[in-house]
């Protein structure tokens, strides 16, 4: 029988390297942008305009118009292919009253704007702190409920508590890697944290138990069946018996997510990419981290038990 659990130190090492990279990405982002993950306007407040002009325009002209409205710190960036003349401008909050005349000034001094393609988004700064609070709360509540749910599902198994804790470890693993990935993309591609990112994170939390549950279920079923085998072997057997399913399910989820990333347009690309990373991490952490951790814990507990018995 192929032994997955035996090589657990290698997986732990691999994950440790991923952790280090994730944390490095967040530190790099913090150094460069002052935030471990670049915060979008949902958190900081502010405005984003996406302007499509019907001709080539100069970046300086756009900046000057915004500066005339007291928005000197506007960040003006080209978006899409150069022949599309699409520009994204991020500024502090622009009120509804100002938008109309700002757009009129842009049309007059920069170039005609395609109104059908015009997109802007404004969030009041005061909302940001509330969103941050709500998001933190949602993540905490979600994690707690999922762990309580695990503990409840496995309440009849000896040491159900350990199953819950190992699930949290797997969940934390997935979150760190998802955050690290987003921080990296923030540096490389300017991705900013928004409501959709939080949705992705909460979904990753929810799916963090999908594979763990199946393996744990199988362990629960196999323990009475193979009473003579050591725990480690039972666990290994359970992983091997369920790995086909985990991989097949993961593959299907990956197919649809990759299809959305490739063909679904740019708007939800960061969202689906985060989900993809989170879910791949989930399948990996279920088999190679959460379940082997359970073995480590059981073994340590057994050793302590023996030591106590000998003393």
């Amino acid at each position, binding site marked *: 029988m192929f032994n997955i659990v035996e090589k657990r130190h290698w997986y732990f090492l691999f994950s440790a390297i991923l952790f280090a990279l994730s944390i490095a990405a967040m530190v790099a982002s913090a150094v460069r942008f002052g935030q471990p993950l670049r915060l979008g306007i949902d958190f900081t407040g502010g405005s984003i305009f996406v302007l499509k002009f019907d001709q080539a325009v100069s970046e300086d002209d756009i900046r000057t118009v915004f500066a005339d409205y007291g928005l000197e710190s506007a960040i003006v960036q080209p978006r899409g292919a150069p022949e599309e003349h699409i520009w994204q401008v991020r500024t502090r909050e622009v009120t*509804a*009253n100002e938008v*109309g005349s700002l757009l009129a000034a842009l049309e007059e001094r920069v170039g005609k704007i*395609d*109104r*059908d*393609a*015009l*997109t*802007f*988004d*404004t*969030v009041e700064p*005061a*909302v940001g702190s509330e*969103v941050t609070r*709500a998001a933190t709360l*949602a993540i905490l*509540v*979600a994690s707690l*409920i*999922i762990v309580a*749910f695990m503990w409840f*599902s496995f309440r009849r198994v000896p040491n159900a508590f350990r199953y819950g804790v190992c699930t949290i470890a797997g969940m934390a693993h997935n979150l760190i890697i998802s955050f690290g990935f987003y921080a990296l993309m923030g540096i490389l591609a300017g991705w900013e944290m928004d*409501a*959709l990112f*939080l*949705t992705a994170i*909460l*979904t990753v*939390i*929810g*799916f963090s*138990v*999908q594979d763990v*549950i*199946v393996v744990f*279920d199988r362990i629960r*079923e196999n323990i009475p069946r193979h009473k003579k085998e050591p725990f480690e072997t039972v666990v290994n057997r359970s992983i091997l*018996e*369920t790995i086909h*399913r985990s991989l*097949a*399910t993961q593959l*299907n*989820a990956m*197919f*649809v*997510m*990759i*299809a*959305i990333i*490739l*063909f*679904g*347009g740019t*708007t*939800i690309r960061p*969202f*689906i990419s985060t989900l993809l990373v989170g879910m791949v991490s989930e399948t990996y952490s279920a088999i190679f981290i959460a379940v082997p951790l359970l073995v480590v814990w059981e073994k340590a507990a057994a050793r302590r038990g023996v030591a106590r018995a000998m003393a």
Partner: protein
Amino acid sequence: MKKSETWQLAVIILIALAALFVDLNIEHPDWVENLLFWRPANQRDIALRRGLDLQGGLQVLLAADVPEGQELDATSMETARRIVESRVNGLGLTEPVVQAQGERRIIVELPGIENPEQGVETIKGTALLEFVDAGRIPLPPGTVITTTWGGPQITPPGAEVPPTTPTELSPTAGSPLTPTQPSPSPGVVYETIFTGAGLKNVGLDPRQGEYAIPFELEPQEAQIFADYTASHVGQYLCIVLDKAIISCPTIREPIPNGQGSISGKFTFDEARQLAIQLRYGALPVPLRVESFNRIGATLGAESVQKSTRAGAIGLTIVLLFMLIYYRLLGSLADVALIIYVLLNFALYKLAPITLTLPGIAGFILSAGMAVDANILIFERMKEELRRGRSMMTAIEIGFSRAWPSIRDGQLSTLIICTILFFFGTNFGASIVKGFAITLAIGTIINIFTAVFATRVFVRQVAASAGQWVSEHKWLLGV
């Protein structure tokens, strides 16, 4: 074959056909649409509703502008919502949406609006109209004044509240009332004679190139107006909107019939905005714009097209994967997956669920994960077959043993959807809600198609062709 199972198969086929009928992009007969008793009689069309991000338009999130910690009663928020709704309807757009979001927010969606600035102003203006005694000195338009009409922000319109002086206002309750501009004569409190709640009819009148708003008063206010104008001839009566002077006409003669007109330097848009606001009354709660968001119509159309393509490609790959990997069983799972898609869309149309871009993503994702239950069952069946069990036994063990894992997985998804839904509701991120709703609906329908329907299919095939399948084991992928 058991009789009950034939029945089950018939029910599944019927449901699938009904879903297909709903999904078809045709004129559905009136009697079918009238079966949707849970929807208002005039909104029973069977059509897919596209969210603002898919059709383009303006979304405005309004929040009650009251100090932190101050109680907000649900009735005034509901009144505010209804007034906002009436105002929005006055703008003459197709299918605007006005919904309460949590306890203190209202979300307004205006598809295809031309002038977003005007839209926002029309919606959020408190529109507290006051007729104020200015004595013998006229006030220039735009001046912000203090009036005796106390806490209009927290007083429902029409409620008889004795005028209070500023000193009686508690500092917290009074803070949002503080004018942004200094008043011309600090400390002067002008007397409010009556408010816009007394207006009966409000019109719109082009006069000498400028627009005016003629109005008619309710009998009681008409009487006050008549008495007041009779005793104050030669003095100024200021018309004040949200504590700012609009105009200060002189009272030339008593006005007994309760009819008057508000004139200022209005453009058509401004006059129409004011007329709409006065017609539907002042907001019982002041509203603040927390966020607004405009999406271009062409971008919406592009999103629809792209996500449809992405969904089609993703689903095709999943269907092929199941067919190749699980052969005969996979083809049954594919049938179940197609029914799954039909049912989801039918439900979106019937409920109705407004589809947004993240909503579509949630649906596509749920379809990709819908086969998970089938995979769990099939893997278990293959395992049992390899152990040498008979096909019938393997089928039953496959379904019964895989069930706890399926149930737990689905439950955890539903828990997260609930959290996402509340999270989305409480800070008005309707995009988060859209994702949570489609994912949750998908998860529930999945139990029907992937567990119940697939089991009926597999049993039927096993009962009618079990012997033949057993001889061709490759069909099962074992």
